[in-house]
């Protein structure tokens, strides 16, 4: 019930911009082309969605895309605070670049830095695009991409394994 109001407000703001809608529990996401994402963000901001709750990304190597999702909501409008609206952008995996939304929503600034270091998405126009959680040589490897391989757990097959001992 409450999500319908949020959804209709967001649909009204994004009319003509979005290309698809996905809906979950308490959550509705609008798919937006990368070149129109600033326009969509400004429309949502003027409709009352005043902050970004999270910026996240999904790596889909088979389709060759990285999907960046902004979750926005509102503090000032109690009606809009009942649901979360997402903007999903698909970017090419070999050169993921999109305009930064941290000018429009300031709370996106650090989270865009996180997506930058973990997925390698470059946000054009970001005021300070540096790694935030990882050390710089590690951030260049983009550890949350699917092609970053971590050491797997092995099955113990008996015998004495040689471990690296602390000095």
């Amino acid at each position, binding site marked *: 019930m409450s999500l319908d109001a949020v959804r209709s407000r967001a649909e009204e703001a994004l009319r003509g911009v979005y290309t698809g809608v996905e809906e979950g529990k308490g959550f509705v996401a609008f798919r937006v082309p990368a070149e129109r994402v600033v326009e969509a963000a400004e429309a949502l901001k003027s409709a009352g969605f005043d902050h970004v709750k999270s910026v996240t990304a999904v790596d889909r190597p088979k389709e060759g895309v990285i999907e960046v999702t902004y979750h926005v909501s509102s503090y000032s409008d109690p009606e809009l605070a009942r649901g979360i609206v997402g903007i999903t952008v698909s970017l090419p995996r070999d050169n993921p670049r999109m305009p930064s939304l941290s000018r429009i929503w300031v709370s996106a600034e650090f989270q865009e830095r996180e997506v930058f270091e973990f997925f390698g998405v470059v946000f054009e126009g970001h005021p300070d695009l540096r790694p935030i959680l990882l*050390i710089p*040589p590690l951030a260049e490897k983009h550890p949350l991409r699917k092609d970053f391989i*971590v*050491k797997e757990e092995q099955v113990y097959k008996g015998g004495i394994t040689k471990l690296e001992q*602390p000095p």
Partner: protein
Amino acid sequence: MSTLRSREARAGPPEEGRLYVGNLDAAARRARELLLGKMKLGKLVDWGTAFSLWPVHFTTSCCGCEFAATWSPRFDAERYGALPWLSPRQTNLIVIEGTVTKKMGCALRLVWEQMPHPKFAIAMGACALDGGIFYNSYNIVRPWEVVPVDVFIPGCPPRPEALARAIVELQRLIREKGVASKWIEEGEREDKPAPIPKEDLCSWWRG
């Protein structure tokens, strides 16, 4: 007059075994020889250090709860003379409570360098031993690659008794091996030198 002259005459050339205060350097050297050589001041230093192990807070993970419980009234680790302190400059023990990420490894080494010697380290929990559940993570360091660790506590997380036991073990280590007095005498710890981390952990910090 006669007593004064006789005292002057007795003074004569400097004698072995007496303390002269005219030359401060010589007097200090002599006092050090007397105290450390004959009166076993080293043992006094070890005894004093063992009962004033002040740990600095370095809570990186959930083991910090057990650390807090150790100093709560029930387990009361302050009876061993250990008092948690905020500033690393007034402490001589660091309890590494849990996972240390690469960026935190830089902070760990910086805190360690700020502490005055003789100083000791306790690694607490499975994560501090060998990574724990984050054993294959790309973003952790083993604390023993960053600072020289004296006592390891296994467990996930260890009980407060285990941490109290580690403090008692460290006290035993200091008093039996004379770690603190040797460290003061020689100026560095030769049996456990500070390791050099494999990679540059502080590159982010210099910009």
